[in-house]
């Protein structure tokens, strides 16, 4: 436990060193990256052995301000979530070395590094917290530090709006969370997490729903995901990588933690989580398909993956209430596995998108194309990440989804509602998989393949060495997990070891299946290698011609004739129309000599639209009526304060 705090101190020291060294740009970057990496390494070396140590969890408590106790506790679940924090954080930071190249913004880069370090430390504190006060403090620290990371480019208006969105959702979520904590405190009279299970059963569901909304707004469940597609494109790419890869998983951690602490017997919780997961997953991926901005698309794809994780958790929770150990075990294990995998390939993809943005100046798919030849390393690693995130073997994404499928199939023997929900889970996983394939073939096929659609794409050059190095490393990791999943699956199994219901389940028989999966992946690669060799032989001494693409007789082809991201997705979007409204704007032709006509088309987020209509507008109307309270008279403000204190003193 002490090593964990040492590592956090080192990480924070790294952040501070950035502020102190902000005049020396290169040295500042190197020092921060080195220090934070060392800190993360220490943290990892303290967390890793704990997974294999089945003895009781480590605990520490401190008094703070003589009133509150800060207490920390690290069990297997916390440890499992610490691993991506300590792995992805330094990796994204190393990537940033060549990403943050603008010397003139040295001061801002230093501030960015400082808040980055604070974010890493606060995430570690979130998963290590063991009482309400500690958790709330760490949670707020995490939300605030990430807010400052999002508004890095604050001169751009859209980015300020993005930051504002994020802030509202982070604090709105926190409001629900604190309400849940207040209800708990009302019943237990203590801040301790361990006493939460003692609150009466009828309150448990309410507490869970409140906390689920709170954590969900951080994780990005539908319809509380609206901030993701704003915040991720606004933030620098290493920040998007860590936020999407790691930080939104803190919401998942919170859901798991509150579920385990509540220990509620009602089956409704599992059903809510599963159905939310299905909605989040399917709609997330459909919106991802509809977006043309790579980073927005990746943000929606994060929503989709949160959906997959929630489906896994939902299966696990239903398994617990149905007393089906296998179902519960694989549901939870699959969710954990997917948390781990997603942190890797989503970081990889955000980094790839960042490299593209850095070198071309645009992230709009319809303006890119042909980057595979101009940025080969970025292109190949992005391809690997895309296969992985589509859940296709022999890459890592498949392993987590397979575990969830396996858990879902265990539920097929159940009756009534659990049976229907298991079917729903499996079918929606299949549909999500298919749509994810469509989404990522779109990104790779249209941004990286074909011909460049604009000058910007045509003049792109390969990204800097630190960026390439990290992307290659992550891409190889995706492949390794896909081919040799056994140690990683064991890691997920160790992660769920502290879920009591699953203690007695022995997954030995499943390990055979995992070995077979690994065998199949190897077999496929062997077949693939053999066929490639066969193809090589066929082409020995053959005439290889080269000519433009066959235009079906049309000889005046231009790059603008290529299929675009919009046209690629149009048919599929149309199919999901009620949920994915397409909005187009046409200026029309007026007068005898018409001016420039414009046509714009895009997809509206149905959740955002309804929030606007149902919540924001009425709220603004109400607030406008109450504006007289804010009159700018200091004396009266002081009077308000005194009045408030008096009322509180009298009332309590």
């Amino acid at each position, binding site marked *: 436990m002490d090593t964990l705090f040492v590592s956090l101190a080192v990480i924070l020291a790294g952040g501070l060193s950035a502020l102190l060294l902000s005049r020396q740009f290169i040295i500042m970057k190197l020092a921060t990256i080195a220090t934070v990496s060392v800190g993360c390494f220490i943290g990892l070396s303290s967390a890793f052995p704990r997974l294999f140590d089945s003895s009781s969890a480590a605990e520490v408590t401190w008094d703070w301000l003589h009133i509150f106790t800060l207490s920390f506790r690290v069990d297997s679940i916390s440890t499992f979530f610490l691993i991506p924090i300590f792995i992805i954080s330094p990796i994204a930071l190393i990537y940033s070395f060549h990403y943050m190249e603008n010397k003139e913004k040295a001061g801002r880069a230093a501030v960015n590094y400082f808040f980055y370090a604070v974010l890493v430390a606060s995430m570690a504190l979130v998963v290590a917290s063991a009482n309400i006060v500690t958790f709330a403090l760490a949670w707020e620290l995490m939300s605030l530090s990430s807010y400052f990371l999002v508004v890095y480019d604050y001169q751009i208006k859209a980015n300020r709006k993005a930051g504002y969105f994020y802030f509202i959702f982070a604090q709105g979520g926190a409001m629900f969370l604190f309400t849940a904590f207040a209800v708990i405190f009302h019943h237990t009279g203590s801040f301790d997490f361990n006493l939460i299970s003692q609150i009466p059963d009828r309150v448990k569901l309410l507490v869970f729903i409140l906390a689920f909304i709170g954590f969900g707004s951080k994780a990005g469940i539908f319809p509380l995901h609206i901030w993701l597609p704003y915040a991720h494109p606004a933030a620098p790419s290493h920040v998007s990588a860590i936020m999407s890869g790691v930080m939104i998983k803190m919401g998942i951690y919170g859901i798991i933690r509150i579920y385990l602490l509540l220990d509620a017997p009602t089956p409704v919780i599992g059903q809510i989580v599963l159905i939310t997961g299905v909605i989040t997953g399917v709609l997330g991926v459909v919106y991802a398909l509809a977006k043309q901005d790579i980073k927005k698309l990746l943000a929606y794809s994060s929503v989709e993956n949160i959906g997959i994780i929630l489906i896994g958790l939902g299966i696990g929770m239903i398994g617990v209430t149905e007393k089906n150990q296998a179902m519960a075990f694989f549901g939870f294990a699959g969710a954990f596995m997917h948390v781990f995998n997603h942190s890797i390939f989503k970081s990889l993809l955000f980094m790839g998108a960042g490299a593209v943005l850095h070198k071309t100046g645009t992230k709009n798919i319809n303006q890119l194309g042909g980057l*595979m030849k101009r940025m080969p390393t970025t*292109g190949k690693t992005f391809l690997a990440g895309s296969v992985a995130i589509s859940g296709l073997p022999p890459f890592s994404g498949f392993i987590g989804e397979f575990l969830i*499928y396996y858990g879902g199939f265990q539920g097929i023997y159940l009756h009534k509602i659990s049976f229907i929900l298991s079917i729903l889970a499996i079918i929606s996983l299949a549909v999500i998989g298919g749509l994810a394939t469509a989404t990522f073939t779109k990104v790779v096929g249209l941004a990286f393949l074909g011909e460049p659609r604009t000058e910007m794409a045509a003049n792109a050059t390969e990204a800097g060495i630190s960026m390439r190095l990290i992307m290659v490393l992550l891409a190889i990791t995706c492949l390794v997990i896909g081919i040799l999943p056994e140690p990683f699956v064991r890691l997920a199994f160790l992660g769920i070891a502290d879920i009591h219901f699953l203690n007695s389940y022995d997954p030995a028989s499943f390990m055979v299946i995992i070995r077979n999966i690994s065998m199949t992946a190897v077999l496929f690669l062997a077949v693939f290698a053999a066929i490639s060799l066969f*193809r090589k032989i066929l*082409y020995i001494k053959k005439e290889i011609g080269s*000519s433009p693409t066959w235009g079906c007789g049309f000889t005046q082809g231009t790059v603008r004739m290529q299929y675009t991201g919009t046209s690629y997705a149009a048919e599929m979007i149309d199919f999901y129309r009620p949920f994915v409204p397409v909005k187009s704007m046409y200026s029309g032709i007026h007068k005898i000599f018409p001016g420039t006509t414009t046509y714009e088309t895009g997809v509206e987020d149905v959740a955002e639209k309804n929030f606007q209509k149902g919540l924001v507008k009425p709220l603004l109307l109400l607030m406008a009526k109450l504006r007289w309270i804010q009159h700018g008279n200091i004396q009266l403000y002081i009077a308000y304060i005194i009045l408030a204190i008096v009322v509180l003193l009298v009332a309590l």
Partner: protein
Amino acid sequence: MESILSFCIAVCIAPFLAAIIQKVKAYFAGKQGPPLFINYYTMIKLFRKGSVYSTSTSFVFKLGPVVAFSTSLMMLLFFPMAGIAPVFSFHGDVIILFYLMGLGRFFTILAALDTASPFEGMGAAREAFFSTLAEATVFGILILFFRLTGSLSFGEFFSGNHAITIMGAHGALLLLVIVALFIVLLTENSRVPVDDPATHLELTMIHEVMILDHSGPDLALIELGSFFKLLFYSAFITRLLYPFQFENVFINALVFYAIVMLVYVVIGVVESITARYKMNMVPKFILTSFALVFFVTILTMEFIQ
């Protein structure tokens, strides 16, 4: 040994079977049609040729055919042809196999987009769309079979105590499954009424338009891969149709392949007597198969307690 032999036979016979469809279509059109060994001749011809590559393409274009061919080959390695155990089999293999097929599709789509051709982009978009719908049906069938047999493997579906046969207690349910699977077959193998494999140009197609720019051995690999895929789906339907097992392996294999041929003939007849649907009808057609499977699965709630 037996398994490997059976696998080799399947690989060798697949191009021959595909020619049956052409023969049936020729018969309906009142023509003589190509010889039954036409596909072998085509393969040999293509293997002998060189290739022309578009200047727009990258290495992904060359990767497409190899990946697609390898994944189709994997399907045959795991499927029990003619009642003989497959070369490889384990609990859970169906999931990874259908996902491998997805991998093949992923790279076929990418290869099509790599050419920068608007036609091929169009084909790619349709392929991506229709396969997401067909995937739902396939997993619906897997759910049903898991409920009936408790296994997740092609090898186990058709052997052991709970083997799926049309003569069994749930035979009636299987009839609907067969229809659904046939629809998936038509979709995934780009047959009429979803797609038209005969028109080698223009905008009417899905799969064929995606491979417009492939030539020589690359094209041969794609064609061979699609023969294997068609054989896999037909064999799947055949295993559901045919309930008996003979003692003699050879008679078994003979009857099995006779029924497979029958399936091919049916495909040919369907192609001859129906026209291709308008594109906006295709999703409805595919969803019909899903509705059938879902209905059957709901029915099992009462049958199996």
